[in-house]
């Protein structure tokens, strides 16, 4: 672990070394087939950072019937892995993140972190919401400091960490600005810094770049990839954009439309840093998209059927 001269505060890397080949063994019940792009060597077995064990979620619809949103989802995420989840809208991928974050209880099944079941929220798993949920009454620095205050970290140490993480997302100059004074891309970076500052093992990201223009998004992809490499966090990233998933992820999990199941997994073994316009990224995305299209059609059919019924 080396200390960058720019950054005064050296963070602890929570997982194994970033370099080299990560493990690619799918243990337990394989919920789906695995496709590799192109083939990658299989090395040692690692205890999963996050494991979902037969997670199901059902809820009562307004009509009174019980709807199944998530159906026995098994998923294992290795330490330091960048996992992307894609699926049609309404497949429950955001809900899945809320379950992992412990903000919502599942109907059945278990969420395991480092092999231990968790219930309720914990700062080892930080979720970056789709709407961000930054606090408008706090400055940029105040937002980043919030989680540290809740952890009862001393003032001096808080100061150090706030500086370090604001510098990491290039926002140190905007420390005393309020959220409403920032652009969309800057707000994303504040949310990222706020999440990273608590030093979670797992970063959960819920379509964080969906509302941004293409240029800003490309820039944030680069930054996220760099930060992921620098900090060694495990990231679970939900998106409906397959290109984005392939650009960022080590592995892409495709979910089915209602009830949400894991349909297929794709290993993305492309060299980093990647670019969203790269032909390999585009080709891989196309293969996944072909698979996804069936699910999108299913979701559309259901919507149209609803209309006809009315």
């Amino acid at each position, binding site marked *: 672990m080396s200390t960058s001269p720019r950054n005064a505060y050296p963070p602890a890397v929570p997982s194994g070394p970033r370099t080299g080949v990560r493990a690619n063994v799918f243990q337990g019940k394989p919920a789906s087939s695995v496709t590799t792009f192109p083939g990658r060597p299989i090395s040692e077995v690692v205890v999963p950072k996050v494991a979902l064990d037969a997670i199901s979620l059902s809820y009562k619809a307004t009509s009174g019937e019980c709807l199944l949103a998530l159906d026995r989802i098994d998923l294992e995420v290795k330490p330091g892995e960048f996992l992307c989840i894609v699926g049609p809208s309404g497949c429950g991928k955001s809900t899945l993140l809320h379950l992992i974050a412990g*903000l919502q209880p599942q109907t059945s099944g278990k969420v395991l972190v480092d092999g231990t079941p968790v219930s309720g929220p914990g700062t080892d798993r930080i979720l970056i919401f789709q709407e961000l*949920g930054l606090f*408008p*009454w706090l400055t940029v620095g105040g937002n980043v400091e*919030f989680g540290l205050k809740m952890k009862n970290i001393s003032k001096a140490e808080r100061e150090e960490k706030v500086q370090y993480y604001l510098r990491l997302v290039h926002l140190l100059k905007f420390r005393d600005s*309020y*959220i409403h004074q920032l652009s969309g891309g800057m707000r994303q970076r504040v949310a990222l810094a706020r999440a990273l500052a608590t030093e979670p093992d797992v970063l959960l990201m819920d379509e964080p770049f969906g509302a941004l223009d293409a240029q800003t998004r490309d820039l944030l992809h680069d930054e996220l990839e760099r930060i992921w490499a620098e900090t060694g966090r495990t990231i679970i990233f939900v998106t409906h954009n397959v290109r984005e998933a392939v650009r960022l992820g080590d592995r892409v999990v495709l979910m089915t439309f209602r009830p949400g199941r894991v349909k297929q997994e794709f290993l993305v073994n492309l060299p980093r840093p990647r670019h969203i316009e790269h032909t390999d990224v585009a080709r891989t995305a196309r293969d996944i998209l072909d698979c996804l299209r069936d699910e999108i059609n299913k979701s559309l059919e259901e919507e149209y059927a609803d209309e006809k019924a009315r």
Partner: protein
Amino acid sequence: MKKLAKQVIFYSALLGIWALLAKLRIWPPYLFPPPWGVGRALWDGFADHSFWIGIAVTMKRMLIGYSLSIVLGMILGLAVSSNKFLEETLGGLLVSLQSLPSICWIPLAVLWFGLTEKAILFVVLMGSLLSVTISMEDGRKQMPKIYGMAGRNLGASGFRLFWSVLLPASLPFIVTGMKQGWAFAWRSLIQAEMIFLSLGLGQLLMMGRDLSDMSQVMAVMILIVILGYMVDGLIFRTMERRLQDKYGLTPA
């Protein structure tokens, strides 16, 4: 500046018409005083300190009664919004009680407290307590759920979640409630003072009536409008607008 010019023209015209009507003597001056008569009454009132005393007495009552209603209203509002049982029972009662004009509390206040300062404060309290309570309750409900979730996600819970997330998140709604509460309290206080005859602006107004001094009546009315506007329109509205900007509640 353009807006200011329009306002200057409008008010000059209003004064002009008023002066003209007074000059024409359609109504006798003791019923329809000219602007300069009202101006003179204002001058005299401040010169003999009776207006200063009236303003001081009224504002002191306002501050006490209003502060009390803010504290109690927040506690009540929080209780109602965080408890399902209270919300369904007490919540409904509070909304229905709000339809009662605050002046209706005067007979009750007089019988309970006599013709005392306490009775006036009670009327002011009842005038604004309900609206503060209801907007506090609304604020807790309208507050975006995301803040609570984000707070819990970052490790806040219990009292700290309330103090450092839920309370600041509902601040814009609380300020709206405080503003509304002020308006209600102001009306209730003037009404109560008109009946109690215990100094204050309301009493000065009634004194003008008893002396058939229309100039004083109008002078005090103008005072009440100006004071009410200064607090409501300048202090509260500025506060509200600043908060809404900051919280992104208004389109930029």
